[in-house]
């Protein structure tokens, strides 16, 4: 039985905040995973939050002057700097609170960015913020390409996906590099809480956001957020495709607390074949059976690697 409703008691639907901090009226495409991720994330974060946002779909669709979809304090500065703006916000709030210039109340700083703004151009800022130990949560909204500028490949685009800068053609099968595993790279910064999430598992995602919110120090959540436009999918498939990413082992959901790995949503045993995930998506349409085989082998190996960590790695407390 899949525990997709783990901690149902905590997040029984009636307990989920009814208030919308990411209000209706934004201009994202129908079925957008990132917009859904933000909505869920905000509900888990609650009112006492400041959000910094990298340039990308979620910025341009939410704040066309003079309108805004945000009812939380929100700032966008540029594409590569959500994390460093967050570092400044966190430091500013800390100093002002210490000096008694603002209310003496804890306010969480949360930085968000697309996969491009996180794993590529914004990675230096993210790494710096995590290394310095700012008390902030960073959430990567991973739709696996630069969608805002027209579906160009990013470091998070999966192997074989066809994008506007890594197109499939006579001489090419799409993106040649494998997806960069930023979750693991952030983990190597020794941050106390890191997790993967997906909009198709809303309670799992919200639990993780809630957990990260309560940790003092840097935390990171990598949220797979399907993009019907860029993935070449009918918009009503957004939730289903996320589930398939998990069931095929392409994107397992786990969390790492103080070095200890834990799978948070059960996976089927054995995993479903990757074709179930690849087939519905136009961006993988061109793949040959050989390429799919290659992807299948890689997914299995990565999955084994992860399970190996889940089974064998101890928490830092245990290792101390």
């Amino acid at each position: 039985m899949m525990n997709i409703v783990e901690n149902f008691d905590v997040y029984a639907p009636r307990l989920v905040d009814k208030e919308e901090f990411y209000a209706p009226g934004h201009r994202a495409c129908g079925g957008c995973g990132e917009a859904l991720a933000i909505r869920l994330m905000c509900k888990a974060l609650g009112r006492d939050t400041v959000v910094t946002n990298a340039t990308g779909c979620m910025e341009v669709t939410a704040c066309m002057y003079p309108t805004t979809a945000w009812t939380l304090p929100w700032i966008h500065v540029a594409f590569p700097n959500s994390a460093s703006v967050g570092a400044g916000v966190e430091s500013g709030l800390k100093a002002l609170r210490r000096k008694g210039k603002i209310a003496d109340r804890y306010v969480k700083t949360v930085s968000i960015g697309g996969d491009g703004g996180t794993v590529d151009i914004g990675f230096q800022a993210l790494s710096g913020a995590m290394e310095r130990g700012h008390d902030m949560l960073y959430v990567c909204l991973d739709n696996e390409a630069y969608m805002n500028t027209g579906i160009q490949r990013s470091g998070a685009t999966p192997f074989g996906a066809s994008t506007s800068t890594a197109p499939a053609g006579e001489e090419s099968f799409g993106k040649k590099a494998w997806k960069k595993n930023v979750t693991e790279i952030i983990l190597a910064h020794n941050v106390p809480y890191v997790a993967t999430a997906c909009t198709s598992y809303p309670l799992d995602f919200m639990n993780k956001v809630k957990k990260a919110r309560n940790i003092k120090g840097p935390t990171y959540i990598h949220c797979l957020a399907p993009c019907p436009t860029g993935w070449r999918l009918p918009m009503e498939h957004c939730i289903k495709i996320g589930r398939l990413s998990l069931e095929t082992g392409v994107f397992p959901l786990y969390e790492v607390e103080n070095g200890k790995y834990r799978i948070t949503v059960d996976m089927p045993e054995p995993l479903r074949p990757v074709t179930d995930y690849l087939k519905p998506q136009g961006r993988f349409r061109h793949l040959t059976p050989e390429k799919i085989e290659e992807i299948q082998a890689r997914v299995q190996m990565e999955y084994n690697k992860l399970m190996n960590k889940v089974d064998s790695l101890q928490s830092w407390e245990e290792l101390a």
Partner: protein
Amino acid sequence: MAKLAGMEIAFAAAEAVALCRPDVIAAYPITPNTHIPEHLSDIVAEGRLDAEFICTESEHSAMSACCGASGTGARAFTASSSQGLLYMGEIIPIVSAMRFPIVMALGNRANSGPINIWNDHSDIMSQRDMGWMAIFAANGQEVVDMMIQAFKIAEHRDVMLPIFVNLDGFQLTHMVEPIFFPTQAQVDKFLPEYKPYAALHPDNVVSMGSLGMPDIFNEFKKAQDEAMINSKKVILEVWKDWEKAFGRKYEPVMSYKTKGADVLLLTMGSMTETASVAVDEMREKGMSVGLLDMKLWRPFPSEELKKAVKGAKVLVVMDRAVSYGGPAGPVCAEVKSLLYGEPNAPVITNYIIGLGGRDVTVEDFVKMTEKSIKAKKEKPEKAYEIYGARGS
């Protein structure tokens, strides 16, 4: 009472910033401004200043962190030079558009390449049209004074713009000079607490940094330009207040021995000091020469400059940066455009000097003056000259 101390100017700049009680300092080291954030980190470490010191992993992040901090209503400071400023470049125009009153000490240094750590003004000139105010210090005392003035100017409700305090790399940053320091009480009295117009806090929700579509972008830019133009009034006020409180006078264009002078030199930054010695020498020789020192670069001191050059026959403009393929050096091009069509405008000559730390001596100023006087009679061949370059 104010106390006099012999101190390296970069350290003095840091002490002055500390007197302004910034809430957040974010910086990344680059010669020659490095001693400023270094010394500030010491001051914070010693507990003399209650601030968050963020040692970022790059200048891009230092400027970004200042944005975030300023967004919360914190007083934010950073320092940089040359490549560091250029690396911040993406965020520089955003800061002014968002109306964040961030103060930056810019230890002026040549832009690479070839790589060169010494002084010229190519860094600031490359950011000329980014919507920041810019003032130039000529010596250590001015650096200290301007650092404090800068916060007051930037944070004024009618301004709300970021500001560069320019201090020449090495010529100023690394010099030891006797400097008068105001007391903390004096600075507290002069500089009110920063009260932001809007701040990132759940008690009063705002969205900052929206998308400006073509139907509104023009209006944003016009508002920004108006704020910049109007800032001059505030700058003049702050300088008057400063004079009242500390007795030292600041004007957009300072004049030295200009009364009745036929020839005027126009300088910015530390070369003003050398040029003033040259003016003394030339005056002794009976030459009718005076000196104008432009302290205010943005907003451009148009009226003051027009007034200052009235009656002069020759104006010698010194630039410390090249506008490659342009009509003149960046300063001179603006001066010419200002004086075009003015009745009895002086003949203007333009020398680009002191690039990448090249020495400019008293003798050089005398030579440039003599050449310029000649140019009044014989029309100059070129609009500008990269003075002293071998092969020219």
